[in-house]
């Protein structure tokens, strides 16, 4: 039972990192990146390939994941410069599917649908419970550091410009702001964080395959960020922990609700997640942790 709980905490930290990657891109800049799981996969594969094929240390794998995520994020931004709102969402959704399909078919590189096994971890797997504890602590620390970084960036003049661009990018442009540069920077940072989450995930569970990177993960993470508050790192983080806690707790619905089959329990879980989101949006429209404006300085 202890291993199970620690495992859930580790996975929640990975989800929290993913949710945090949405803060600058979606919450602060207003870009809907439905290709989140694609960047998650890019990071997982970049790290796995470097640490297995090239036998590089795990830390180097994590750095490679960050770089790969940022570079692919830049490519996606530059190819979607003219797109906003729904159109950007559709294209990025397509991007994630392309990543999954390429991973499934480029067998020489990714081992196709068989996936990559035996990915080295940051810690010795033979440690039993301690292995999980160490990883959960490490992932939580990474999550905490990323959260602090995102919060500082959000509060900086750079973050203020992102929010201005989210409000109206034409006005931001005529106010002298390099809109494309700011959007690209935010997207690159967000993509790098999502890729880092992928690398941590792969190194923890030691195996990755294209089927692990389904669009449902993106939807779950968006739900988490929406419920917690998509423009603050703390909101996205708490949202992710609540989502994972609820997804795990609701596995036991079958024992509480009489007369439902396992398939019906699975459907009930999805329904309750949706219902919880509706309730949060009804009673806390900006999420549990709403965006805060900067305190205005004295006029004199």
């Amino acid at each position, binding site marked *: 039972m202890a291993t199970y709980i620690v495992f859930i905490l580790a996975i929640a930290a990975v989800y929290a990192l993913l949710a945090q990657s949405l803060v600058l891109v979606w919450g602060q800049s207003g870009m809907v990146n439905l290709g989140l799981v694609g960047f998650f996969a890019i990071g997982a594969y970049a790290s796995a390939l470097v640490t297995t094929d090239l036998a590089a240390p795990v830390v180097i794998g994590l750095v490679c994941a960050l770089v790969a995520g940022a570079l692919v994020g830049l490519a996606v931004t530059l190819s979607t410069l003219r797109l906003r709102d729904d159109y950007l969402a559709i294209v990025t959704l397509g991007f994630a599917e392309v990543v999954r399909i390429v991973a499934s078919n480029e067998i020489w590189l990714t081992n196709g649908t068989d996936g990559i096994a035996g990915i080295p971890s940051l810690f010795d797997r033979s440690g039993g419970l301690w292995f999980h504890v160490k990883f959960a602590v490490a992932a939580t620390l990474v999550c905490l550091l990323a959260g602090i970084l995102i919060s500082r960036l959000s509060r900086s003049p750079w973050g*203020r410009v992102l*929010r*201005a661009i989210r409000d*109206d990018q034409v006005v931001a442009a005529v*106010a002298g702001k390099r809109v494309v540069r700011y959007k690209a920077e935010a997207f690159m940072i967000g993509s790098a964080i999502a890729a880092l989450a992928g690398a941590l995930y792969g190194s923890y569970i030691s195996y990755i395959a294209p089927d692990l990177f389904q669009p449902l993960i993106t939807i779950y993470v968006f739900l988490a960020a929406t419920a917690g508050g998509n423009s603050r790192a703390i909101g996205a983080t708490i949202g992710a922990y609540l989502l994972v806690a609820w997804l795990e707790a609701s596995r036991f619905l079958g024992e509480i609700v009489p007369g439902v089959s396992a398939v019906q329990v699975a459907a009930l879980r999805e329904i309750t997640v949706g219902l919880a989101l509706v309730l949060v949006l009804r009673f806390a429209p900006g999420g549990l942790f709403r965006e805060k404006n900067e*305190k*205005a*300085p004295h*006029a004199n």
Partner: protein
Amino acid sequence: MLTVEGLVGGYGAADEVVKGVGLTVAPGEILTVIGPNGAGKSTALKLVSGLLRCKAGSVRLGESDLSSLDPQGRAREGLVFVPQERNVFGALTIAENLDIGAYLEPARSHERARDVYARFPLLAERRGKAAGALSGGQRQTLAMAIALMASPRVLLLDEPTAALAPKPAAEIFKAIRGLADEGIAILMVEQNALAALAMSDRALVMVDGRVAMDGEAQAMRQDPEVRRAFLGGRA
């Protein structure tokens, strides 16, 4: 001195809403562009600001040729555009809006903000409030204040009194006159033509993408032909 020559352009590659407009605006001068709906007034302003790409023509500010610059580049040279609508950042506070406008000299942003607050005391009172909660006239004031944070040499104002009641419109006009008196060149498109001409130095009438008339604002205001055609008055 803002000098625009032979400006041609529109919203698409083949579109020519503006068909060869030329004008000059000296420091401290207000040039108001009037004309019927669809004459290309706002389009001309967007071409000057760089929001739309010119097919032909040039935009110069003093000795600098700004024709190849994007809106950000032109703003950094001192040519600042204030759009007609959606011209403030509604989710940000007034103070944050002003900070967004201060990019040329971030170190002096506090000093600039203090000047702006002194000029517009209402903004100082509400500096911690979200801009989205302001009334139409207050938003327009804030839009000009954002532009002022960049120490502009030329302000391009697209219908600054659109949808405003007479009293706030008069206050906006007064503020614009004050800015011009401090040496800022102002190129303004305005539907409220009579009131705009009353506080302008020169005026230009655009019809079908071209300059139909150009002259002193007060003379234009008294011109029977202009009054009949564009000012809703009798000859």
